[in-house]
């Protein structure tokens, strides 16, 4: 691979570029799915190619090819240079890159059991067992299961002298039960929506999730929702389960802290951010107990945002984003770091694959658990009247990340410190900073889960990225509830 990269770097160096990098990616994926007792999907995919990014004449060019012959790679390198020179025709100022050291390293994500070593029969047998449990519940009209594995191997070289090899395995697994009755379609998912739980680990994740053991309960809840009361409308104290809080972090913290958005670079598609640079260390983002980090390091756990180096060769780091409620940090890149007075990127540049240019993406954006022991049961017990939300069903937020509305698959009324009646179609909405400032309790480390969001879309052409979000159940006071169904007739 180094020989291939050298073809690129030699051409670029000879043309006097400010910077160039070559990323070669060899990717393999397997997707298995069932639907109502039959195979819903069975597919393998592999992809190999090179992406070349160059900074010349103060502007960027990127070209990608699957042709790894010397002629193919050199043609792509020349195209990247040609594109960079064309880019320079429309610029206000030259791109400035924060300096970074050269690294020679080799890293793999933790993977105890290679998921591709598990037989297809064993995988299908597991999915069919789950399917059978789900459809064993009277009233379940549709049962879907899925298993996904990915092996992502990357060789990175740049003109700074870096030579970095990284290998990541990703596993995702989950299922959903649907029930259609009268004029309602209800759904329950396990362990989360979006295809379940996803982490950068091996098959050991599948073995830990008690998938079959929970299937009947999930089916029963899907059916029971038809007879549940509609979620009321008004202002309530609410408790979010950890997966819903993970998505709340993703949408109302993770995206607004992307510095490219803040600087207007995503204005045409993904939007901008209310977190203009003057707010850094000048905004009370949340209450005093809100502490959020952007942590790509292995110590944070095997999240979809865990790596040793980002896709422009900067080591993964842990950046405090919200500290005791104060806004303290962005996700940055070598190009953008100087705009917030930093002389180094915090390592947040990621690309979907060899054929996409890296851009600022979430790593693991996680809320830290509370320091004192607090279980979900204790949190509920300390809540007089409220609503407990489980498992995301819908999500939407404006293009500056102020106004959001979320719905979950199921809710439960909390009365006198106990979960009482089931509620269907629960939703809540609010303004980002008002919401985070209303948080008054969060459970402790033993209740904390590092969730994976496998489907975060951003960029043009759009790139889909996996991000990690650690969260524990938390309580928010006086939140607007039930607006989604208000006047929707």
């Amino acid at each position, binding site marked *: 691979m180094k020989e291939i990269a050298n073809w690129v770097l030699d051409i670029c160096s000879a043309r006097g570029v400010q910077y160039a990098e070559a990323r070669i990616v060899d990717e393999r994926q397997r997707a298995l799915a069932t*639907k109502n007792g039959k195979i819903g999907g069975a597919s393998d995919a592999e992809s190999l190619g090179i992406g070349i990014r160059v900074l010349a004449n103060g502007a960027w060019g990127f070209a990608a090819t699957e042709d790894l012959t010397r002629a193919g790679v050199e043609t792509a390198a020349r195209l990247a240079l040609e594109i960079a020179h064309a880019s320079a025709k429309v610029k206000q100022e030259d791109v400035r890159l924060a300096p970074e050291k050269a690294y020679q390293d080799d890293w793999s994500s933790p993977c105890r059991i290679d998921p591709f070593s598990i037989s297809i029969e064993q995988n299908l047998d597991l999915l069919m067992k789950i399917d059978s449990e789900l459809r064993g519940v009277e009233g379940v009209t549709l049962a879907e299961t899925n298993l996904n594995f990915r092996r992502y191997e990357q060789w990175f070289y740049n003109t700074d002298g870096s030579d970095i090899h990284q290998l990541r395995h990703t596993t995702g697994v989950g299922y959903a039960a649907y029930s259609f009755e009268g004029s309602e379609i209800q759904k329950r998912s396990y362990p989360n929506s979006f295809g379940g739980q996803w982490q950068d680990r091996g098959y050991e994740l599948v073995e830990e999730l008690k998938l079959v053991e929970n299937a009947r309960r999930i089916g029963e809840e899907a059916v029971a929702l038809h007879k549940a009361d509609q979620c009321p409308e008004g202002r309530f104290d609410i408790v979010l389960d950890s997966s819903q809080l993970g998505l709340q972090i993703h949408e109302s913290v993770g995206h607004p802290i992307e510095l490219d958005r803040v600087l207007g670079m995503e*204005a045409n598609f993904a939007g901008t951010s209310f977190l203009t640079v003057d707010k850094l260390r000048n905004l009370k983002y949340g209450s005093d107990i809100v502490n959020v980090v952007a942590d790509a390091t292995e110590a944070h756990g095997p999240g979809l945002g865990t790596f040793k180096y980002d896709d422009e060769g900067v080591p993964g780091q842990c950046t405090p984003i919200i500290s005791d409620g104060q806004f303290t940090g962005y996700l940055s890149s070598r190009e953008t770091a100087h705009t917030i007075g930093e002389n180094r990127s915090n390592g947040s540049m990621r690309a979907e694959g060899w054929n996409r*240019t890296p851009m600022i993406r979430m790593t693991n954006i996680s809320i830290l658990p509370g320091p004192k022991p607090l279980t979900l049961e204790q949190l509920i017990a300390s809540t007089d009247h409220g609503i407990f939300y489980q498992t995301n069903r819908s999500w939407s937020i404006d293009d500056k990340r102020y106004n959001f509305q979320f719905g979950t698959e199921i809710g439960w009324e909390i009365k006198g410190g106990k979960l009482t009646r089931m509620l269907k179609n629960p939703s809540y909405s609010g303004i980002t900073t008002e919401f985070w400032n209303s948080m008054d309790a969060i459970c402790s480390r033993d209740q904390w889960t590092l969730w994976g969001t496998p489907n975060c879309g951003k960029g043009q052409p759009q790139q889909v990225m996996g991000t990690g979000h650690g969260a524990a159940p938390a309580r928010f006071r006086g939140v607007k509830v039930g607006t989604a169904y208000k006047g929707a007739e």
Partner: protein
Amino acid sequence: MLAREKTFEIFNRVCKHSKADETEMITSGAKSSLTRFANNTITQNVSEENYVISVRVNFGGRTARATTNKFDDDSLQRVVESASALARVQDSDPDLLPIPDRSAFDPAGPIVARTYFETSKVGPVERAEGVAQMVDVAKKHNLTAAGTYATSESVEAIVNSKGLNAYHSQTSAEASITMIAGDSSGWQKANFPDVRDLDPAALAEVAARKAKDSAHPKELPPGKYTVILEPAAVLDLIGFMFWDWGGQAILDERSFLNNRIGERIFGENINITDDVYHPLQTGCPFDGEGVRRKRISLVENGVVQRLVFARGTAAKIAKSDYADKIGPVEATGHGFPIPNEIGEMPSNIVVASPDGKSKTVDQMISSAERAILVTRLWYIREVDPYEKILTGMTRDGTFLVENGRIQHGLLNFRFNQSLIHLLNNVVEMSQPVRSTGEESFDMVVPAMMVNDFNFTEVTKF
């Protein structure tokens, strides 16, 4: 560009490795380039050429698929072996049909010619010039521009061991622009197969006008309002219902059309067809099995008339309780590549008023006592799958119209709106145009004036 002959050559080599009863190969890929700009500067400029082949094997009711972007013999052997390994261990599915023969795609059928040399020859310099046109407009109006200028030349082909072969190529040129003022913005986007139809400067002027006219937006309380939805807003909303429009969605009981087919569920002025052959449409005239797409009338005068079906779905429906309850059942050429969980959907939507009567957006504004003009919607998600309630935000140009004139810009709204009710409350439509948004696929749709659109919250900008 991967030529038709090359796909045959690859398929012949694939077949040498395949021991399956039947073998199918889908080829797809593109040479695509996109120049992205923000703050009046090109910030990202990319180009790629990548083609993949996807091989499906059938072993007596067992099927699976494997994909690669490498066409050497070792890679082709590996992809066939991967698909075969995934298929062989399955239980046989009695509902899985044999692959279609060559009659499924009659080459003498309607032709769609959507490849233009003028588009395929656009390079980075020409794209930069297109961006420069848009940035120049921004500078003229003291605005900041962000957007894209993109071109592509793509191919889709399917060949199988029963002699079916179908091949489609097309070009695309697209420009999207957001103009940003101090506290407002405006947006426009368009694409065409022929780059000569694309006018970036004209798009930029409209976006600039919207940004300037919506400066210093005022707050209006949430509630039900008459809205004038520009075509991009219309397609981004209605696109959410077509995932429910296939026979498999009915069998799965996950469609809002379950128990509603044949009923008048929309207003009498709603007519929707799926027509890949429409002169303003783009796309491929065959589906994921190579079956030729048919023109299907989905809604006539508000009544849901027909669904679309993949071959396998049509066969299952014909044996089910739905056989005589959901209109004509036949393979319509709308299936996804097999195996899949969704089945099929219509993706070449054309919406037009039944009698050809129309009003331009300007005429709708002139006729409105009070309405809200919506340029674009954002982050639309489904809240309720059966009542088809959607939530989302307005964005990049929301205006109060009173006494037949645009009065001023408005702070953006969140909506929670049933699509069924929306399509019962359409009071005016423009002539349909080829339109593109960000939340759904491209369509040929009109602007719509809609009563009682349900805004539930207001955001801070």
